[in-house]
């Protein structure tokens, strides 16, 4: 578990000034993070704000339609009685029919709401509060907290008396929470779908949640027109606001008295809660979930066997000794001598034979003969070409003569 047991309270007017240096973190912030419980409780609790709706029970049934039965070459679906209009004889009543009633029409007495066990709801709320104190979770939820001086952010009670929105805005700017508000403003989009015609025109993100304590605080009015900001009393913390969408890690701004009240609300690990009757904070299954630390701890490393060295069998590329002389020599040192002996034997065998000298005279004679033959060939081809030319000339001149004669 993280050890962030102390927290500073900041002055409302100056974010660099600290009014209370180190106050202890309420035990809620140490409860285990249980996304499973939170998501279960959230999906059920989110159904509780639904309003009943239903289809008109008579819709599609206001006909005296009857099936024509068999033998008339039509489907057996009930058909509208009467005549004189297109509608007569058309299919009615079925969910598959045009203008028919839907299948399983929605009734008003559908079970719209869900009840969740109190203990589960409380564990979920505690977990959600704990998650608001963990920076990576707030980052993961998408809040812009790069300018915020501390998480969890606790501010003196002075903000509870803010009445003007300008005060609220300036306060948010001072504490780096305005970046989150700007995100909300810039990502406001027109909703896709028909809901935009039913009163839900915009989709707006969630910004910071301001939690106060004193009942007659005026800050609700100051903050309520700032887009994205929600204000809630500590005694009425809502999971739907602490973990919107079932996603843990809302960016929360606490007032000092609200922060101090959390111990009474949720109790500590020593004492059960005062205000939630009989509620005890959930205990973690593992006190130290940091696996890396456990593995590297002295207690574990003492008992652990030494690491096995991995022997790689074929670390080096295998060379073929039949083709690679060095590889062969490595395996068979005598191979060198064998090779030398083989070369010597070859040399010995070829000692008597003379080298064949090239016969220059023969070469000359053969070349002359070749030239002769090729010359004769050339002459022959030239003569043939010339003959062809003569015939051509003769032919065309005869033609010319003939033309002239005509």
């Amino acid at each position, binding site marked *: 578990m993280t050890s962030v047991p102390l927290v500073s309270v900041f002055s409302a007017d100056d974010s660099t000034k600290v009014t209370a240096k180190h106050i202890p973190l309420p035990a809620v912030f140490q409860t285990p993070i249980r996304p499973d419980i939170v998501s279960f409780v959230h999906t059920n609790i989110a159904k509780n704000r639904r309003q009943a709706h239903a289809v008109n029970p008579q819709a599609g049934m206001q006909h005296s339609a009857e099936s024509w039965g068999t033998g008339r070459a039509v489907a057996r679906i009930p058909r509208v009685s009467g005549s004189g209009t297109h509608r007569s004889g058309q299919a009615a009543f079925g969910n598959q029919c045009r203008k028919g009633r839907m299948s399983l029409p929605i009734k008003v007495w559908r079970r719209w709401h869900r009840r969740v066990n109190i203990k589960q709801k409380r564990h979920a709320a505690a977990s959600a509060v704990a998650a608001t104190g963990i*920076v990576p979770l707030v*980052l*993961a939820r*998408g809040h812009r907290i790069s300018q915020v001086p501390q998480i969890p952010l606790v501010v003196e009670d002075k903000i509870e008396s803010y009445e003007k929105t300008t005060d609220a805005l300036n306060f948010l700017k001072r504490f780096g929470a305005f970046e989150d508000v700007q995100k909300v403003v810039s990502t406001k989009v027109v909703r896709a779908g028909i809901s935009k015609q039913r009163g839900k025109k915009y989709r707006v993100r969630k910004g910071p949640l301001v939690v106060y304590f004193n009942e007659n605080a005026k800050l609700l009015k100051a903050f309520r027109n700032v887009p994205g900001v929600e204000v809630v009393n500590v005694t009425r913390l809502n999971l739907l606001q602490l973990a919107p969408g079932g996603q843990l890690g809302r960016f929360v701004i606490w007032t000092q008295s609200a922060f101090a009240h959390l111990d009474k609300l949720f109790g500590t690990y020593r004492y059960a809660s005062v205000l939630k009757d009989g509620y005890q904070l959930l205990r973690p299954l593992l006190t130290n979930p*940091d696996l890396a630390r456990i593995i590297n701890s002295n207690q574990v490393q003492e008992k652990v066997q030494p690491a096995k060295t991995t022997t790689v069998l074929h670390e080096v590329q295998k060379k073929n000794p039949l083709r690679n002389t060095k590889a062969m020599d490595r395996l068979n040192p005598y191979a060198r001598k064998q090779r030398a002996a083989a070369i010597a034997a070859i040399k010995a065998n070829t000692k008597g034979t003379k080298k064949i000298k090239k016969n220059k005279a023969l070469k000359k004679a053969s070349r002359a003969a070749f030239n002769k033959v090729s010359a004769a060939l050339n002459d022959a081809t030239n003569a043939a070409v010339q003959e062809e030319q003569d015939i051509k000339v003769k032919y065309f001149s005869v033609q010319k003569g003939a033309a002239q004669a005509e």
Partner: protein
Amino acid sequence: MSQQVLWEVVKGNNAFLVKRNGLTLSTDPFNNTGVQTYSSTGFITNNAIGVVPTQAKVNQINNVNLVTRKSTKFQQADRKTKNTQSVYASTLSVKHGIHTASRVIRKRFGTRRLGLQKAALRKLVNLNRANAVRRRNEIAATKAQKK
């Protein structure tokens, strides 16, 4: 908070998660690989370094920032230090050259987490290369203007 526990909460859905074309990517500034995995997701640890490009002003030598994930005892931003501090990170600009920056990365990761170290260094080098192109164009443009 333990990295394991945070991962279990965050791996399914988080603000940096981008799923496209069958890939699971991350826009986490502390993630130098771009892919969302347990070891590369830096914002759930307390010792990651993110190599982040910034909008470079004219004549600024470098446009890279090192964002160091830090875990402070009280999760407070330290206002007194020069580097821009937040609750979860301190930002260092790379104005003394990438060699100094790479030393920061090497010192942070040491001999462990070589994969993360290499990813950070690789990103630093690539951003620096792109930056060199930018600077070259900038200088050429100013020269042309002067003429």
